[in-house]
Every structure is written in structure tokens, then in C-alpha cells.
């Protein structure tokens, strides 16, 4: 049986391995070194790799992300950690206006092999300035590849291929996942091109990613007990989206629920719904439904925060409603 490790440990393993394999790789960010990472992901790496390669930065998100871009241009393979997606707003200018644009703008002369990791999501009562989910924003930007490892294996296996990309990659780590344990095959390897079906099913398709995968899987068990077999797609790659996997599933189940922690309006869920509209409209027996985060700044109080997030009961309920909808005339 494969050993069980936490998502945090898996991510640390991935970092360690990358640092060992490629001397161009280094990790840079606020408190990644002495402190061990605000989510303890990089704990111990400073002792192992030294302060040049596990580089603590001042609180200067725009500056050190920009420096990461420069270092990538200079031949390094930087991994830049931003503590939380909320703080990444401070660095968006460099990410969008430079990192994502440079290859095109320079006619292909320069490119930015930069990996940016950041924590995302709510659920820890950290309130409105530490709990956003803005994956969809990043997935909007041409020039970026956006990953959302939702399992321990993906936490370990997506970093290395991300570092092999010649262009910027953003990795979202949902803060609630760090303590999650899962099995880990040694060196399984992962592609960063495709979505994965985490559970097959015939009655509806649930599309999700990141921190929502586990609540969704929880919901499917309950649904299964009620005789509803949901197919669960873990997107894994948020840009570019793997339309083929999604649409193939739609053709099997004809009903789709998208579960996305982001604010509903303008969420990634909207994009997925729009694509299904465009690519599989005539396969649908019912309108695609979205279950998203409430459109409020995430509140602190536990009961309010929970009410603002898509949780298993709501997922079960949405799936049931969706399956109950009468099919279109044949």
C-alpha cells in the first residue's frame, strides 16, 4: 500500500526534488526560509538548500514577482511563492502586463519560465482579505498556464512539469488542502494538460477543481446511496481548459453541475457553462447549473463563512434537483 502523506508534505517533496534535480530552480517569497513558509510548505528547505535558493524576500509582492520574471529571463527557473491570492493583486501588473505578454510582445524573442505558487480559498475563518478565490481571473489571461492540484499526488507531481514549461505557470493551492492526507505512489509523474475523471458516473457530471474536489466527492457518496451516480471531473488545469474531457462526459450524462468556490458572477464556472453551451448544447437534457461561493466578501464568523461556501449538503441538493429536471422533448 502506498504511504499516506499530507498535501503540504507532498508539495514540499516536489519542491525538494525540483531543487535537487535542477540547479536553476530556486524558491523565493515572503517567509519561505527562516519562518518555513506561512503554510509551512517550505519548512526545512532553508537548512537543506541555503539562503540563496530558499530566498526570503521583503514584503514587496510586485517587486519580487517582477524579480522572478527577470531571473527567469536570466536563465533561472524561479518558483515564486505568494502567500495568498489576495496579496497577488499587488503583483498582477507584473504577471499580466509583463510575464504573460512578453513572449508575444517581443515577437517570440523572450519568454518567462516562471512558476508562481499561491494559496487560495476560504474555510479557515481568515475573513475577507485572506480568503478569496480568483483562479478564474488568472485563467482569463493568455500567456499563462494555470494549475490547481487538488490531490496529494497532483501536489507532488504537477510542479516538475510546470518547471519544464517555457512560459509562466500559476499554481493554486487551496489552503484547506494542506492538511489533507492521501496516498502517494513514488514518482507517479503527472501531465499538466488534462482534466481527470475522479469518479465515473452516468447520471450527471460534476465539474470542479481545487478545494471543492473533496466536498464534491463527499457529496457523490451521499448521492450514490440515493442511487444517483455522479461523474466527477477534476479540472486540474484551469487554463487552457480541457474541453474534450468535459464534453465527452456531457455526452455520457447529459446533465452538468459546476462547483466552484469563487464568486459566481464571472467565475471560471461561467466559462465552463458557456463552453458546454457552445460545444454540447444539443447533448443537454437540462441547463448546466453552477454552485458557487456567495457573492460577498468572505465573512469571519464560522457559520457565515460556511454559508458563503459550497458545501456537501448544498452540492447534494443541487445534484438532486438537476437530476430531477425533466429531459427535453426527444
Amino acid at each position, binding site marked *: 500500500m502506498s504511504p499516506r502523506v499530507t498535501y503540504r508534505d507532498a508539495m514540499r517533496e516536489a519542491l525538494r526534488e525540483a531543487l535537487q534535480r535542477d540547479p536553476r530552480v530556486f524558491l523565493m517569497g515572503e517567509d519561505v526560509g527562516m519562518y518555513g513558509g506561512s503554510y509551512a510548505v517550505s519548512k526545512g528547505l532553508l537548512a537543506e538548500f541555503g539562503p540563496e535558493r530558499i530566498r526570503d524576500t521583503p*514584503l514587496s509582492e510586485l517587486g519580487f514577482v517582477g524579480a522572478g520574471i527577470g531571473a527567469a529571463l536570466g536563465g533561472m527557473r524561479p518558483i515564486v511563492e505568494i502567500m495568498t491570492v489576495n496579496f497577488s493583486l*499587488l503583483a498582477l501588473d507584473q504577471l499580466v502586463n509583463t510575464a504573460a505578454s512578453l513572449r508575444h510582445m517581443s515577437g517570440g524573442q523572450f519568454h518567462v519560465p516562471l512558476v508562481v505558487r499561491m494559496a487560495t480559498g476560504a474555510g479557515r*475563518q481568515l475573513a475577507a482579505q485572506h480568503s478569496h478565490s480568483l483562479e478564474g481571473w488568472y485563467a482569463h489571461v493568455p500567456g499563462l498556464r494555470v494549475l490547481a492540484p487538488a490531490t496529494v499526488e497532483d501536489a507532488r507531481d504537477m510542479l516538475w512539469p510546470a518547471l519544464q514549461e517555457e512560459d509562466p505557470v500559476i499554481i493554486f493551492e487551496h489552503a484547506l488542502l494542506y492538511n489533507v492526507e492521501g496516498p502517494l505512489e513514488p514518482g507517479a509523474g503527472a501531465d499538466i494538460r488534462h482534466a481527470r475523471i475522479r469518479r465515473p458516473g452516468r447520471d450527471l457530471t460534476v465539474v470542479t477543481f481545487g478545494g471543492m474536489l473533496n466536498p464534491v466527492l463527499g457529496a457523490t457518496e451521499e448521492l450514490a446511496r440515493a442511487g444517483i451516480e455522479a461523474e466527477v471531473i477534476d479540472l486540474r488545469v484551469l487554463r487552457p481548459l480541457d474541453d474534450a474531457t468535459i464534453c465527452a462526459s456531457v455526452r455520457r450524462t447529459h446533465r452538468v453541475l459546476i462547483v466552484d468556490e469563487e464568486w459566481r458572477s464571472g467565475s471560471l464556472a461561467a466559462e465552463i457553462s458557456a463552453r458546454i453551451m457552445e460545444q454540447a448544447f444539443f447533448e443537454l437534457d437540462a441547463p448546466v447549473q453552477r454552485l458557487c461561493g456567495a457573492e*460577498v466578501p468572505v465573512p469571519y464568523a464560522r457559520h*457565515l463563512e460556511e454559508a458563503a461556501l459550497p458545501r456537501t449538503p448544498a452540492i447534494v441538493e443541487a445534484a438532486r434537483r438537476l437530476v430531477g429536471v425533466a429531459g427535453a422533448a426527444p
Partner: protein
Amino acid sequence: MNPVTYPREQCLELVWQMLRIRRFEEACAQLYGEGKIRGFLHLYIGEEAVAVGALPVLQPDDAVVATYREHAHALLRGMPARTIMAEMFGKSTGCCRGRGGSMHLFDAATRFYGGNAIVGGGLPMAVGLALADRMQGRTRVTACFFGDGAVAEGVFHESMNLAALWKLPVMFCCENNLYAMGTALARSESQTDLCIKAASYGMPTHRADGMDVVAVREAALAAADEVRAGRGPQFVEFRTYRYRAHSMYDPDLYRDKAEIEEWKKRGPLHSFTDQLKRQGLFSEADFEGLESRAEAELKEAIAFAEGSAPEPVADLYKDVRAAEVSAS
């Protein structure tokens, strides 16, 4: 510590405030352990002299902008301990009806503008508040608290320049506790003398030992007077130290135990009371009186928080924007 020349009443008040904050913070730590308070919690233990020295020099209609480490500032501004405690319990009687928590205390009545969990995020807000005062012909001070870590943020630079360029009535109060989470100042700033940085904007600077409540108060008074006199923004650096870890998540591996002990010897509370005792201005009985007062306040606050109702879930969407009015 130098001999204290304040009247006894005032000395007692300073001790009282430091003590009540200390006890409040200790209670928070305990309640966090019990799971009553959650999320991120940043304690002010060790730094009490800064807020206690600086806040009371402000007038009721002045404004305060602070950080996520702001319980002390909220208390000193006059917010009742109970509404702060209830906020951290996530209750409807909390100052923000449970939406903010420890990092986001706000109070319109005392012009306490938070409670900001974006490092440096409060600085431009302070600039704008001061700008509004200037444009409306009011002589008020906006006091803006932030840590040494915030100085590295670009927004510090932009805010300092705006305030100095426009000569706005802001008192920038840097609580330099030498660390930003696990990052010591020297590993974060090429120039560790933060007054030199501030002076590069042409802004007058003041400095005080942040472990000495009298020194803090005098520096803050001087700075606030300058601001109020229309001589533009002032920068005050308070050198201080936090005894606890950065937050309840922090294993505090980056500081020498010896360093912490060294600073504890200079603790703001006991160094002040010791001095007062030497001057015959303060007795053990005084201390005990204040202790029981602090205990009573805390007990009441906790009971209030415990006993309060949670905000109804139905109100989740309230206050995202103003309730829709008829037509405009």
C-alpha cells in the same frame, strides 16, 4: 527608565491601559486555544507601551488607521472590550457583527478605521482621510499605525510621498518590532534606520523607545502637535518587540530565546511600574486594584460574547452594498 514627572492619576491610567491590554491579549490566547476565537490572531503583548503612549494624545474626532494587530488600538480608542470580544467570537453583537474578526475591528463612533490585513493597506487610506480633512477645512489628525514590515511595500513609498507632497495632516506611527513574521528587519531592509527612509520624503521624523510609555507619549505628543499646527505629516518610529509569536500559527523558530528574554527584561509594564514604585507613585495595592478591574472587564466581555446570538445567516448578503434606494 527616567524619572516620571506625570501626576499620579495619569501614571495610574497608563499602567491601567497597559495592564488591561496585556490581560486582554492573554485571554485571547487562551480563548484561541479553546477554539472560541479562530482565524488569524496577532497579539500585542510586549508592545503595549506604544499604543498606550500614542493613542491617548489624539482627540475624539481624530482618525485612527491600524493593522491586524490592533486590539490595543481599538481598546484605547474607546471601543468596549465586549464588542471586540464578541466580534472575535463571531457574534452579532461584535463591532462588525462577526464579519471581521480579530484582524478587522472597526468603529465608526470613534473614527477607528480598522483593522487591515493587507500589510501597508491602511497607509493610503490615512492619506485620503487627511486629504478630506484638509479639503473640508478641518484641523484633525489621522494617525496611521503599521509595522516595520510594511515599510518595504511600494504603497508605503507612494503614501509617504503623497502625504509629504500635499503636506497632509497624517501622523505615521511605525511600530518597529524588528520582525515581519519571521523576517528580521536587516533581512528585509537595506537601510534599517527607518527614520532615514522617512526623511527621504522630506518628512520630519521622531523616534522613541517603544518600551517606555512616557517616551512614546512625549514623541507622539510632539508629532501630533506638529501635525495639528499644520506643519504637515510626521513620521514616528517606536522601537518595540513582540513577546509572542507572530500569530497563533507561528512556531517562532527564527528568534533566539535569549533575544526574547533580553527584551522581556525591558518589559513596558514592569519597567514603568518599577520606576513608579521607586518614585513612590505606585503600590502593590494599586496593581491589585487594576488587576481586578481588568479581570472584571474581561469577565464581562467574555460573558457578553458567549451569551450573544450569532448573526442570522439570512443576513449574509447584507452590507455588501447599501440597501437599494428607490430611483436616483
